[in-house]
């Protein structure tokens, strides 16, 4: 029996929830507003800011002044590249662990998880040194590899939890009907695994896009993604609120949109299946 909810209670809930949500969301909302103002107006008191004229000037300035496009495409290459490489390695691994489990499967999964917990700062110098030795410093290739490796445990885990939900009987039935391993993967497994793979891709693109340790330390002008580009605003010259806001808005917009679609996957991916 569902409990009848009084309209009054619902109104109170709604008012309270919207208040909380607006407070939490406010900094994001505010930078979007500031990004459409002139530098002079952006530092005024909030009410004066709102009544000041709107302009897209800052977006134009950010684009031409600091190679925004280059950093944006770096972010795109790094997050998509590392996710794609990660999938290439993780799909077979997760498939075999989900469908041909052995006594050691659980241990391997737990061990993979433990590598994710290695603090980056503990291996800072070795990675830096290896990057210098291999000529990978400030290259996209180097960062794609590092980002792939740090997210690989999450990719394997997420795929594993999705694959495990695919009933094994269907695969057996396909085998009985004479499907070989290749056909089994191509025609039976893949279509059923697509939603899980898509969710995994989504979450990992987000994680790689926002990674802000290795991308800050291992890049300079050339391979730096948006995280590094925005960090360069930490030593500002003169008025820069509107430009910072415009650059920030452009940097977070794609991920905010992806984020809308990935709320559920976020929980599963980041808790390693411990909360569903």
């Amino acid at each position, binding site marked *: 029996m569902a409990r009848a909810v009084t309209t009054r209670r619902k109104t109170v809930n*709604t008012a309270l929830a919207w208040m909380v949500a607006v407070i939490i969301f406010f900094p994001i909302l505010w930078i979007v507003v500031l990004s459409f103002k002139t530098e002079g107006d952006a530092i005024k008191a*909030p009410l004066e800011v709102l009544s000041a004229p709107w302009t897209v000037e800052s977006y134009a300035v950010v684009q031409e002044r600091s190679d925004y496009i280059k950093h944006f495409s770096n972010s795109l290459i790094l997050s998509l590249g590392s996710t794609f490489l990660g999938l290439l390695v993780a799909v077979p691994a997760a498939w075999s662990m989900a469908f041909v489990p052995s006594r050691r499967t659980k241990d391997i999964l737990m061990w993979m*998880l433990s590598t994710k917990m290695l603090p980056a700062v503990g*291996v800072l110098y070795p990675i830096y040194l290896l990057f210098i030795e291999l000529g990978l410093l400030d290259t996209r290739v180097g960062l794609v590899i590092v980002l792939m490796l740090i997210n690989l*445990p999450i990719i394997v885990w997420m795929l594993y939890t999705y694959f495990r939900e695919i009933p094994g009987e269907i695969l057996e039935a396909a085998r009985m009907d004479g499907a070989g391993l290749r056909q089994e993967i191509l025609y039976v497994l893949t279509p059923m695994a697509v939603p899980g793979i898509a969710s995994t891709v989504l979450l990992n693109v987000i994680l790689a896009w926002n990674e*802000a340790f290795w991308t800050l330390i291992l890049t300079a002008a050339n391979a730096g993604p948006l995280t590094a580009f925005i960090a360069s605003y930490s030593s500002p010259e003169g008025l820069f609120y509107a430009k910072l806001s415009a650059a920030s808005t452009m940097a977070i917009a794609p991920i905010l949109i992806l984020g809308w679609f990935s709320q559920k996957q976020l929980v599963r991916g980041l808790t390693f299946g*411990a909360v569903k």
Partner: protein
Amino acid sequence: MATRHSRSAARLMMAPAVILLLGWMLVPLTMTLYFSFKKYLPMRGGDLGWVGFDNFVRFVSSSAFWPSVTATLTLVLGVLVITVILGILIALLLDQPMWGQGVVRIMVIAPFFVMPTVSALVWKNIMMDPINGFLGHLTRAVGLQPVDWLSQASMPAITLIVSWEWLPFATLILLTALQSLDREQLEAAEMDGAGPFARFFFIMIPHLARAITVVILIQTIFLLSIFAEIFVTTGGAFGTKTLTYLIYQRVVESQNIGLGSAGGIYAVILANIVAIFLMRIVGKNLEA
């Protein structure tokens, strides 16, 4: 019913992932361990030989060590308390019927998708700047003296920024757990005369216990290695030098690789202690 053939195929398919992660873990970690027993100053003489446990002793006896432990604990505990308590309250609120639930949810979760450098810089300048920042304008509007957050109250300021980033994560996970709670159990308790507080403490909190533990453990692991937020706001000044940041400074700024590596080993051990507890919970779930 897997055949021998499919078993060896399975092993082959697992190999690339295992080998890559093994290399990623073992190679740098061995190097860090190696450097931690050396006096190694790339800019001032290079490799100056083995020094035993000297670096480990010097790292913990340096004047910067205990303040960094305090800073780390303050940040981690502060963020955990704020995000878990507010997370539970907001999750309870979002679980209620209301208008526009979808939009509310998206707004609450949004900060999680903002990259750390953006959140840190936006808070530092646009929100917390005492002269032009939003909070500065606000405090002046009510007739008070604005606070220069990041130098006068640097630790609370950074705790606030990091809590803002992680509150969505806590809320989302607690909300997910809350939604799996059996409604009939709550209704039965209500009919038996349990008030809202009794229902909260004796039904909801025990049901959420596992999710809360998971939130605490996962956040602890990420919070211990907070970097960008400090890097772009205070640069480790004003008492905000955490253990992670101290190690970063030893390695990158003072180029004392031996000392920094010893610190790195401490960080690895610390993270492992937390990880053991997390793995136990995740492992239990794997059996079910």
